[in-house]
């Protein structure tokens, strides 16, 4: 149970900057997701914290100890890998006790710890089996048991669920959260799955081209994205561009849109982001913003209907609505969408 701090960390491969001046703190017992597309540097950051990669500059602190120059094996980390990385020539019990043995815990004491860890991941009595005899989900649980049995200072997870199928992944998410809460381990989780990041985390950090563009509670990051990239990568967004005029934004076609805080001064170009599920088809005159568009495509996705629309100016829009009464709107129909100003966020490009 420890704070983890990263201070102005940078890493360059050849001439390609992979991480640029990353500074952030992972507070004690928190679950933070590093979310980003491939090449955003999220895995590099995790491997720098783990000690597999040396940063070109900056420092890594685990519990106020500067571990920048401490090798992996001296950092007391628990790590889970995408491929499980169980030792195939050892039994489950030997796998789990591997780290204990390295810490001088042997015999009866080690056996007790192993049993407890296996119980925690709900695989009691599996100690004598080999990894080959276990299913993917079970192997992943063993990998988790092996990582937490050593009471690490920090738990590092490198896309550990991406190899599992959808249902199993959801099951493991719940399991992972339960164990993380029970153990109180500071956890850093790398993923490219936005839903997974939202579901699991206390904090989500969105990485883009080697920088953390936004870090915060899932709700904050989703509701108030700071950049166009964050708005686009985490969920879907509609983007409206225009000029600031008297505290509102005038689009090219003259429509005036009201936004919540953070608008630059008069005359500035600005991009607004609106989540497709925040819009609805206008019924009254009560909301702040409205825009007229024609429905191009209707997509039926079970619980949600999504519509792809286009304004007279050719601006593409998306609308998600709950499937309460089936198809109400038809392709080719012109509709007026409305939404509230507090769901309209100015984002940096």
């Amino acid at each position, binding site marked *: 149970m420890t704070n983890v701090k990263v201070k102005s960390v940078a890493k360059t491969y050849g001439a390609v900057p992979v991480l640029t001046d990353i500074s952030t703190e992972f507070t004690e017992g928190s679950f933070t997701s590093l979310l980003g597309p491939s090449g955003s540097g999220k895995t590099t950051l995790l491997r720098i914290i*783990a000690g*597999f990669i040396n940063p070109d500059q900056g420092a890594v602190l685990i519990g106020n100890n500067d571990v920048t120059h401490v*090798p*992996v*094996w001296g950092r*007391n*980390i*628990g*790590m889970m*890998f*995408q*491929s499980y*990385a*169980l*030792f*195939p*020539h050892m039994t489950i019990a030997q796998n789990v006790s*591997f*780290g204990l043995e*390295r*810490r001088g815990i042997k015999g009866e004491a080690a056996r007790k710890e192993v049993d407890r860890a296996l119980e925690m991941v709900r695989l009691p009595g599996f100690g004598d089996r080999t990894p*080959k*005899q*276990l*299913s*993917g989900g079970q192997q992943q649980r063993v990998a988790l048991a*092996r*990582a937490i049995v*050593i009471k690490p200072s920090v738990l*590092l997870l490198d896309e550990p669920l991406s190899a599992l199928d959808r249902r199993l992944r959801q099951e493991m998410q719940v399991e992972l959260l339960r164990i993380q809460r029970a153990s109180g381990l500071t956890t850093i989780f790398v993923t490219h799955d936005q839903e997974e990041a939202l579901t699991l985390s206390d904090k989500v950090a969105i990485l883009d081209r080697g920088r953390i563009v936004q870090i915060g509670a899932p709700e904050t990051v989703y509701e108030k994205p700071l950049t166009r990239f964050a708005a686009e990568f985490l969920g879907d967004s509609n983007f409206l561009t225009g000029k600031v005029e008297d505290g509102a934004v005038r689009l090219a076609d003259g429509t005036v849109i009201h936004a919540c805080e953070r608008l630059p001064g008069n005359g500035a170009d600005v991009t607004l982001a609106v989540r497709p599920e925040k819009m609805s088809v206008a019924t009254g005159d009560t909301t702040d913003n409205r825009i007229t568009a024609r429905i191009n495509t209707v997509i039926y996705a079970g619980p949600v209907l999504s519509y792809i629309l286009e304004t007279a100016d050719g601006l593409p829009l998306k609308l998600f609505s709950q499937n309460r009464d089936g198809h109400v709107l038809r392709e080719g129909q012109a509709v007026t969408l409305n939404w509230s100003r507090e769901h309209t966020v100015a984002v940096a490009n």
Partner: protein
Amino acid sequence: MKQIGRFYLIAVLMFLYTPILVMMAMGFNASPLYELPFTFSTRWYEALLGNRQLLTAGMNSIIIAVITSVVATTLGTMASVALSRRTFRGKNLLQVLLLPPIAIPWLITGTAMLIFFYWSGIGRGMHALLIGHVALAIPYVVLVVGTGFRTIRADLEEAAMSLGSTPIHAFFSVTLPLLYPSILGAALFAFAVSLDQFVISYFLATPGYTTLPVQIYSAIRKGFTPEINAISTLLLLGSMAAILIFARFAKPGDTSDKR
């Protein structure tokens, strides 16, 4: 169809084993001129016991093969580790340069070695044979062990390190045990390459120190007796036993990976 397949299999096995079986049988035939009818006798085995030259050459062959196998497997495995797990300047070049020796005719390698050893003062004899055989066997070891490495994920060592292993401990506790069947296979390969070796041995042997293939060759030239069949049979049984032991312990082809 099944019948044809079976017939084909038997034909292949006969093609491979008939000469060997005839050779073995003739070692137990009383006639020194391989004449039929077959009369069972162990006289050639008894004669072999008195044939110092053949026995010494056989012993030399085995000693050289064992040392070659140990040295080449150690060096070749180390090279494989570097080639599979490390990055360094000239790695690709080295990787490419390791393979041609397998394809270069032994006659050329042998001639080159003879000239080089003569010129550099290494000369001929047991030490020269050892150097030659080890050099010849290393590419095979690198090839076999390198293939083994490809089946072992690099993140296993990383997992060990995350649990507190130093890289050395991770290698010995995780990678080496998984690599062990490949290393054993490579050792057998190196052993066989050395035991089989005639051309290079012929160039590097001295009248006082020779290996079995070279000794058999010179014996044949003088007109040979079934003693050669006898020692060949013994050698063959020894090699086959080694292969069977390997197959028993390494379980090659065991890929029952349940996912």
